[in-house]
């Protein structure tokens, strides 16, 4: 028996279609830009954001899920907690004013601007493992957010023990009356933004989601822009 030589089925960096409209936008909050990164489709990103600075995440191509984890920079054992965030605000979604809380119940970051309603934090990240359940074992070699998280976390001395349920900026996960829940078409658009103010020094780890089997990125992974600003001093503010 001969094995036919075929091109690999492993996606090698799915990129947005050439005619995708891209809107790179600008920071949602005025201030001195201290960081301005472009994150390629499928790639991870991380940065320490000092207390008081504001991270704007730009959905450059629209409906691009930005899977996000947050840790206290000085004590990564304290990290973003979905249940503590939800229970404290008694709502399953994230919007302007949401305080992103840690597993100790403390504020890590606060959403200070948001252009997409009902940001998701219950859907979790895609992974090779969960993809096999969702779509079949044939997708086991596709890239996933959990792999991006592990790769990027390792750069900060963190590993599998440190991965917990995450935020999914620009992803839409409705919960229906009978508890039915799932990822459906997004409500974002090119250039839409969310802005997060660091309440303590935080490490943000992000995966620009490579998922191509569900609508989380419109089946067309596009870039993200990550802008960190030191806000302009406001009279009477101590920052």
């Amino acid at each position, binding site marked *: 028996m001969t094995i036919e030589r075929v091109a690999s089925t492993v996606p090698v960096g799915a990129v947005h279609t050439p005619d995708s409209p891209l809107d790179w936008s600008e920071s949602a909050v005025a201030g001195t830009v201290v960081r301005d990164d472009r994150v390629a489709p499928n790639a991870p990103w991380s940065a320490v954001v000092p207390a008081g600075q504001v991270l704007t995440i730009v959905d450059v191509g629209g409906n691009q899920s930005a899977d996000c984890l947050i840790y206290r920079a000085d004590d*990564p*054992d304290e990290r973003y*907690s*979905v*249940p*503590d965030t*939800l*229970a*404290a605000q*008694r*709502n*399953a*979604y994230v919007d302007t004013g949401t305080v992103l809380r840690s*597993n*100790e*119940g*403390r504020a890590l970051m606060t959403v200070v601007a948001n252009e997409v309603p*009902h940001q998701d934090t*219950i*859907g*979790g*990240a895609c*992974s*090779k*493992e*969960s*993809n*096999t*359940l*969702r779509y*079949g*074992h044939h997708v086991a070699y596709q890239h996933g957010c*959990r792999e991006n998280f592990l790769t990027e976390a390792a750069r900060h001395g963190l*590993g*599998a*023990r*440190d*991965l*917990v*349920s*995450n935020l999914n900026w620009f992803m839409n*996960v409705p*919960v229906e*009356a*009978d*508890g*039915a*829940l*799932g*990822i459906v078409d997004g409500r974002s658009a090119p250039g839409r933004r969310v802005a997060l103010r660091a309440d303590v020094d935080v490490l943000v780890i992000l995966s620009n989601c490579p998922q191509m089997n569900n609508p989380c990125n419109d089946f067309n992974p596009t870039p993200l822009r990550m802008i960190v600003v030191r806000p302009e001093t406001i009279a009477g503010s101590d920052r």
Partner: protein
Amino acid sequence: MTTISEIDVRAKHLTDSVGNARADARAQGGRRSEWMPYLPASESPWCPDGVDPAALTWAETVAPGGYTHKVLARGSRLRLDDPTGDACAHVVLFNALEPVERLNVADTQKIPWQAYLGSGHPLLSGEGRILATISADTSGRHDAFCGTTTDGVVETKYGNADPHGPTPSGRSLFVKAAAKHGLTRRDLPPSVSFFQGVRVDGEGTLQWVGSAGPGTHVELIAELPLLVLIANVTHPLDPDPDYRVGPLRVHAWRGVATGPQDGRFTATPELHRAYLNSIDYCDARGIQ
């Protein structure tokens, strides 16, 4: 029961020698409390109907504000009983062989396309495997959104969050239970809770629905060797200003894991592949 003579022993400080102290300590043995482990497990006064007491491997009544933990073999049945309607069983599961594999609440809600826990629902790890299956449920009031309480929440609500005090947080009890297995707070993922329900409305608002009343139970099947941590504390959304928690009864007994002969095995394509993944892992490990 404390007898008059024992009180006399202490009142008269007759524990001033090793012999007397030993006699005093040994005289305490054999007493019973409302909440305690029953050993051997077959001695449980609350053996579930239809279960052979000789098959029991764990029998315990967990105190309000108490916690417990156990390693269970694959195939074990784990039953939680809420006799008063006031228990709230906060649960975290780990693969006992590799605790880095643990409960993943997001996958537990996302993979079955269902946010509310109930009979047939898998409790999934982040490794694409089923840790445990919910095989029976007479309560229907559970929650996978809100996790457990932190010290901050408990202190604000009840005034005292000492983990050794009368109103401990679930988080602090999980930290202690995890520490007994060499794990730290770094290893604790979000938990699920049984017997106090939460529902989500169209706007995402979390609605407290509380308990289904006294006398309900939930049963789980261990699909991998499991490390189980349980804290019996108030739910984060519990509107009661008092720290009201009832005793939680825990029983486990020997059984076999879900296999092709069970209707659950192929109930959905997602469940089927998840069971296949768990069995594949156990086969390679030489676990029945």
